[in-house]
């Protein structure tokens, strides 16, 4: 049954494999399926530069859900060079897709893995997938902007801050199998699981944090350490949930894979 479903999905996607260029031209309409359009916004990242008051985010599309194992399977079926056994050592580390039994099979936990976000993939693989779909990875600012929205349809007596929810997730150990997409919460932009499920790759993950020591003297580290941005900034000095995301990104290299790191794609309007 599952194999048939997968076959059906891969058949559907066949026309998009011909060439990247063709994919973009032919499939913009289908591409924005399962994406939301985020409106233009003024966003204040916690590591604001001294002269800025905010960062302007132009409207863009973002996947509602993170990319799943089954979606990634269709990608490697169409692109053998990204399969576990064939991928160049430059683009991954030894743990690439280690939770899959083989190139094209998930193994005994298949059922649970079908709809859970794909992890153990490097930035190179995530980037290639997005390109193949005619999309791209979101930038750090775009991702943080998308993630800053509060929980949608919050009940009146539920006053817990989103910051607290995020911190409590950071504090819990990793579950054995990543839960499926949609299992945490929907935010006011209509996006699911921006927090509480996995870390996510962004296009420019290594732009901001340069040192391994969070107390060293570079611009961002000073902000991390002292929590003090420029006098004009209204950044939330106690947004240490953001500290941790930037810290996590700073520990990565593009070829790294981590068992709780996945991604979703973005698209220009």
């Amino acid at each position: 049954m599952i194999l048939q479903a997968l076959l059906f999905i891969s058949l559907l996607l066949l026309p998009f494999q011909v060439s990247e260029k063709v994919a973009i031209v032919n499939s913009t309409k289908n591409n924005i399926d399962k994406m939301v359009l985020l409106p233009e916004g003024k966003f204040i990242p916690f590591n604001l530069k001294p002269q800025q008051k905010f960062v302007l985010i132009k409207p863009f599309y973002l996947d509602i859900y993170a990319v799943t194992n089954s979606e990634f399977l269709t990608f490697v079926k169409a692109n053998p060079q990204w399969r576990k056994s064939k991928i160049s050592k430059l683009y991954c580390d030894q743990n690439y897709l280690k939770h899959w039994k083989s190139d094209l099979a998930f193994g005994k936990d298949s059922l649970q893995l079908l709809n859970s976000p794909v992890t153990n993939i490097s930035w190179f693989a995530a980037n290639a997938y997005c390109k193949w779909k005619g999309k791209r990875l979101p930038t750090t600012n775009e991702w943080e902007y998308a993630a800053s929205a509060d929980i949608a349809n919050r009940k009146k007596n539920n006053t817990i801050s989103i910051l607290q929810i995020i911190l409590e997730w950071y504090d819990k150990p990793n579950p054995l199998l990543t839960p499926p997409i949609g299992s945490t919460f929907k935010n006011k932009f209509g996006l699911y699981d921006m927090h509480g499920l996995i870390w996510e790759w962004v296009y420019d993950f290594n732009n901001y944090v340069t040192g391994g020591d969070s107390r060293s003297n570079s611009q961002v580290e000073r902000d991390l350490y002292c929590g003090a941005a420029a006098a004009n900034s209204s950044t939330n000095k106690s947004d240490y949930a953001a500290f941790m995301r930037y810290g996590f990104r700073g520990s990565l290299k593009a070829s790294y894979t981590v068992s709780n790191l996945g991604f979703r794609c973005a698209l220009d309007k």
Partner: protein
Amino acid sequence: MKLTRKPSVKAPMGISRLKNLAILSALVYAGCSESTDTKKDANDGKMRGEYTANLTFAPQVPKGGYYNYPEKVIINLEVIEKTMRLADGVDYTFWTFGGKVPGKFIRINEGDEVEFHLSNHPDNKMPHNIDLHAVTGPGGGAAASLTAPGHTSTFSFKALNPGLYVYHCATAPVGMHIANGMYGLILVEPTGGLPKVDKEFYIMQGDFYTKGKFGEAGLQPFDMDKALKEEPDYVLFNGSVGANTGDNALQVKVGETVRLYVGNGGPNLVSSFHVIGEIFDNVYVEGGNLINHNVQTTLIPAGGTAIVEFKCEVPGVLNIVDHSIFRTFNKGALAQIKVSGDKNDLIYSGKQSDVVYQPEGGAVQHIASTEKIPDVVVNRTKQERIQMGENLFYSNCASCHMKDGKGLPGAFPPLAGSDYLKNRKDKGIEIPLKGLSGIVKVNGKEYNGVMPQIQLTDDEIANILTYIHNKWGNSGAEVTSSEVGKYRNGK
């Protein structure tokens, strides 16, 4: 450190010259390893040998294997994020160096060249690094060791300075990583090693900040707000309430010399470190070369250490505390050393007598003197007694027996479900009335403390006891003020 020992030879009449020379040279060689004169030649900086360090969990300390020359040491340390017991019924997700809090103890020698491998277990959520205070270099190693889950970072350093140093994680937010338990100790022994003692132990203090109060059950998340305010719920030795008390107490025999390697991971509090019933013969102040003597309580800064040494002369239980004392009674800062062996009444006799004290002298004076306010026999309902008893309990008894009546293991017996209390014929009346000392056995555990006499009226004592008997599933008995009065007047 006193290391010089001059060899001496007595030459009795009639011994041959050759034998003299042989004895002399043998003794010179024996004395060599502990003489500071040879330090310069042996430590010529040439590296000899390589080994992988053996690391231990608290309270164990790895054996010293000092040599007079530097070696290459390989250290493999793994970061594991793990949910474990913080207190009975309370769990916490700790971030650990090696799998427990505090992290593993590292023991190397001055001049060693260390190749440090920091691994971050792939099941972990967060990146981590390490700052060892023994390292001379940026971040103490932190800059070179930021590691994503599922990876290992390697860096090398030379241990230039001897001493006892803290190591901890320095990944943003640093305070949170430390508060979750990411600290441990690294000992860099001076060339020639520290003097030998009989027992060595590893103790590390830390403050913990949970969403719930002290003792509140369940998996408690970290509370950043409380950490910023520096208001911990738990202040602990070795990572959990009772980690080294009762059955887990450190074991020493009478006559043995003890050295405690004590660290304070913080993240915030400074420790007033004290061992009740002992005086520190030596304190290596702040883990450095300065040695103080005859010290009762020593300050250990957050992110700092001290080495204390003493000799156990008499048997009994030594309570290790933070003398900022509410941390011990109400937040769990308690560890214990059980000293076993023969008594020595000259050094410590224990209680020798307990007689009635008559301040006015030997003339006939009754306790119920006219100067005292006569105790009115108050008739109250049982419910009244319980209600009034509750407040009196909180202000007079709870600081030791705790609000939940569970007491403090090893120090104050529980009242909740106490078999000892249930079996007392006087319903416990003589305990607050006259005090209680010596060994008592409560719910299978032994306690050997002193409870002072409580200066309250018959009515107040009756109320407290009635409250205790009607709480926590106890017997439900009632104690009246006239009953107390009878015991007070020597029924």
